[in-house]
């Protein structure tokens, strides 16, 4: 076959492209410090900074572990480091999908099963309430990039607060953390030994209790004002939330303040009607967001209007849909009529 003469210059150009286009630049992932004042009394906190990625890899294999009655899956990573070797003793981890169709999903790691598994296999537990997916077909993670990340716990939170928290064996006198489950909260308080955490009516130590990334908490400082400092990596993928019907704690996943629109809190006309945000001009019938204001000691309530886009504060006529009132140093509660296990906050930058 003879090439037409006119094609030769283009062929030569193509041959030279690999050299001409060679890129000699690379940029690291962004890292950051988020320093928030924790006043005496009540205030909110979220944990959008990732201390470190313990392992980043591509999923080469994904199968149901075949444990009767349990939704436990085996993940094979395309990695020279074995997943088990990346796990530190006593630390809880989650596996976050950083690209692909499941980007942002967080899957709880079963550390015990991983340690006992065949080398190279990471075991995830979809039954764990902190997994954003409870059902997943075997093989669906294959080809996706994942990051193994350590969870925030009460002990890790304590380590990031200065001056040090002051414990007391009497709950009402101790520095405490309030975790919201549904419409109620559970108070965990630091004991006098400065190491163990308990809740009322229990002798269990909750120091290792996980605070998942999509949950904000309330801090109750009785020993004076503090600073909460988070240092580490910034999430570079979309953030998932497994939204339940009713009132629940939420977090934005990113360290910048964002608006309700950036949070994805609008009625999605394409999504199934029973999974999206519900707006109504009557506040009591609308989905809402509550953000704690430490200066007032109470929550400010916002609700989605009937047009499915406009957000107003209770008693106000101002549209706040583009207002960045979802701050990383606040506790956020959302009130939803519909559950949505595919809640998604797109990366806001």
């Amino acid at each position: 076959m003879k090439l037409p003469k006119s094609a030769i210059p283009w062929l030569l150009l193509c041959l030279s492209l690999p050299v001409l286009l060679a890129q000699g630049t690379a940029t690291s992932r962004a890292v950051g410090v988020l320093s928030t004042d924790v006043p005496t009394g009540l205030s909110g906190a979220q944990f959008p900074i990732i201390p470190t990625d313990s392992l980043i890899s591509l999923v080469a294999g994904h199968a149901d572990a075949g444990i009767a009655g349990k939704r436990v899956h085996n993940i094979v990573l395309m990695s020279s480091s074995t997943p088990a070797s990346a796990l530190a003793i006593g630390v809880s981890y989650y596996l976050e999908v950083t690209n692909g169709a499941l980007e942002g999903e967080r899957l709880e790691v079963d550390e015990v099963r991983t340690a006992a598994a065949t080398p190279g296999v990471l075991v995830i537990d979809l039954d764990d309430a902190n997994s954003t997916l409870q059902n997943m077909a075997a093989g669906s993670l294959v080809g996706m990039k994942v990051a193994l990340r350590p969870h925030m716990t009460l002990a890790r939170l304590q380590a990031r607060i200065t001056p040090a928290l002051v414990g007391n064996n009497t709950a009402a006198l101790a520095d405490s953390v309030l975790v919201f489950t549904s419409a109620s909260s559970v108070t965990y308080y630091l004991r006098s030994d400065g190491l163990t955490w308990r809740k009322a009516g229990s002798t269990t130590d909750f120091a290792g209790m996980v605070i998942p990334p999509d949950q904000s908490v309330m801090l109750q400082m009785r020993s004076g004002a503090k600073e909460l400092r988070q240092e580490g990596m910034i999430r570079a993928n979309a953030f998932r939330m497994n939204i339940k019907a009713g009132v629940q704690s939420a977090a934005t996943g990113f360290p910048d303040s964002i608006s309700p629109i950036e949070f994805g809190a609008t009625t999605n006309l394409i999504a199934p009607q029973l999974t999206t945000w519900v707006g109504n001009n009557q506040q009591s019938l609308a989905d809402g967001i509550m953000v704690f204001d430490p200066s007032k000691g109470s929550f400010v309530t916002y609700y989605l209007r009937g047009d499915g886009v406009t957000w107003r504060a209770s008693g106000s006529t101002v549209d706040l849909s583009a207002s960045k009132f979802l701050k990383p140093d606040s506790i956020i509660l959302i009130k939803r009529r519909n559950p949505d296990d595919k809640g998604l906050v797109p990366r806001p930058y």
Partner: protein
Amino acid sequence: MRRKATWGILGLLALGSLWAYYMGDQTGRVAENATAFTIDTRDPDSVVLAQSIAQGEESSSSFVIDTRDPDSVVLAQSIAQGEESTTSFVIDTRDPDSVVLATSTAVVEESASFTIDTRSADPPTWGETSNAFTIDTREADAVVLALSIAQVEESPSFTIDTRDPLPLDSDNDGIHDFWEQMYFGNIFTYNLSSDPDGDGLSNFAEFAFGTNPTEYDDVANGPSSINVAIRLDQVGGVWVVSLSYPRHVLAANSVTYTFETASSIAGPWTNTTASWVEVGNPVTLNGYVERVTVAMPLPSKPTQIYARVQATRK
């Protein structure tokens, strides 16, 4: 006429690119004389010569390198012979695996140049004790000289100038030959924008930040090695943000690192390189990767500050 000119220019461009790609930049020559000569690590031939490096010589403490020896290629494959697991190791020149001699020259970094007399049973500059000596793989320059040692050719002694700041890049693709040899076994298969392990990081990124270009595992070089770390401290009443990042030891001389900061993750990002100072010496993570720490004073305590490291080929 115009069509002909376009054809000609494109042809020259392509041929020039291909020539540069396959032949490398023909700068720097070996200046030989009868018994000694100087090695220029920029010399594109160095790589070829490196193939002949440790030509066996299992039987004595001195050795002769014959670049014509067909077996020399096999030895070259082991040139970087890992040793990642320890910070030091012992080389016995009588050992059949004597290829690790290639990395041994770097222990002599104290002076600007040194001479190796291959006729000597106990070359003093190698810090030997009898036939064995110790190499500290934490030495940052340890690999730079590795590729030049084989420039011995026919002469019994040669001189290496350790001041040469330019790492060897024979095929002029922006990646040091040693690094390409170490991971790919040759210098021609990939260039700096290739991503053979498909992890989204180009060879240049893997080189600049010290990761393994053949494994889809960003933390292959040790815990958190890919992770750029940041922290905020108050030092003597001044708020200081510090940043540490990994890099391949060879990247120190062939990559420019700049630092950008922002008060919002959405930007804008500002080049603040001039405000950062390197803190202490780089800490070696293994034989080839080190972690560099830089710090920048701040006028006041920030509520949030973000940073990233940009690597650019020199």
